[in-house]
């Protein structure tokens, strides 16, 4: 007896949550909004990893845990796997998703074309604002990854990199 929820509802709730926290609850304090959203993601990741590792034997090292996040965990959440995993074998992992589901509803700002008109530093504002707006939507998945890994016993810091949209990368730095 399973209960089902439409994926678009979940996407909508997450977009609305980000907008509510950034504009209504902490409108004047964007860093606090970011921290709060990340904390929500942390708890969600914490609980989800408990559920998805139920049938599995334990992981023998960090790399196996990260591979589990890339394959099984990501497919449970987004029905696809992480497209590319890079590591420097010294505690840093880069998880690249070429088409991140929660960013598909966000348009990529094409206004970078009018930067040849003036050389004002204020022209770079629209780009920055677009980048900022997009990055607020990535605090939640960063929190999910951080919560999942810390429940597996791997304390880490997770940040998102949006230099080439629609692909986005999550950089995981394991704390030693």
């Amino acid at each position, binding site marked *: 007896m399973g209960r089902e929820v439409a994926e678009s509802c979940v996407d909508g709730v997450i977009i609305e949550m980000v907008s509510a926290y950034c504009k209504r609850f902490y409108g004047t304090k964007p860093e606090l909004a970011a921290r709060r959203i990340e904390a929500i993601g942390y708890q969600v990741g914490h609980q989800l990893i408990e559920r998805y590792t139920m049938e*599995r034997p*334990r992981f*023998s090292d960090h790399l196996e845990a990260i591979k589990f996040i890339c394959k099984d965990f990501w497919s449970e959440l987004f029905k696809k796997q992480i497209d590319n995993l890079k590591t420097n074998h010294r505690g840093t992992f880069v998880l690249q998703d070429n088409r991140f589901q929660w960013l598909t509803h966000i348009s990529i700002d094409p206004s970078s074309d009018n930067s040849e008109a003036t050389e004002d530093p204020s022209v770079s504002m629209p780009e920055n604002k677009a980048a900022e707006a997009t990055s607020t939507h990535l605090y939640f998945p960063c929190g999910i990854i951080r919560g999942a890994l810390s429940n*597996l016993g791997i304390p880490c810091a997770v940040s998102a990199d949006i230099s080439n949209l629609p692909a986005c990368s999550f950089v995981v730095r394991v704390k030693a």
Partner: protein
Amino acid sequence: MIVCVAVIGHQNNPLYLQSFTEADDALKLHHIVHCSLDVVDERVNNPKKSGPTLNETFLGMLYPTENYKVYGYLTNTKVKFLMVTTDLDVKDADVRSFFRRFHAAYVDAVSNPFHVPGKKITSKAFAERVSGTRFPSPTATPRSSLEYCRKHVDSAPYKSSDDASKVSDEELKTWEAEFVKVDQATLFDVILVSISSSSLSLLVALTTLSAYGIFQLLFSEFYC
């Protein structure tokens, strides 16, 4: 008989401790659970002893005391489940299936958004589910249902001659009336079994009718 179950967090903090015996035994059981934490650590951190089952979640029997046996289970998130039982002949498969159901109940309790990770589990639903999983699931047919089937099968050939069949029908009715005058617990177990094995529809009808009779009695007691 399972006498105690415990959930211990990854920092060896107790998250849930429930014993199913009288109060004066409970402290002894808690002490046993505490001592078995060392055995869990030893099993997990010593690769030479555990061999190929190093990363399995089910740890097997941790150690036997004079009256009890302790079984352990370690999840991926370093949460330990411990189970103390007084049964002398426990099958490995039964313990594994118990831990699987227990793990499912634990995951549901932890997914509660009001549960603070690291604090004790205070969910009543979890406590009820744990008390429920102690008893084996009614997949095995209890002896009483087999008796019932056998009695009906044996009485079937008597329907050939009239006199003999009348007597056997009455006998059968009295036997059935006696059969369902059991206590409520076994009655519900029998109902569950008969529902799960759908061929015993007569048994279902009979037991539900007598259960209904019990409810009527209870209601009349309650409201007068």
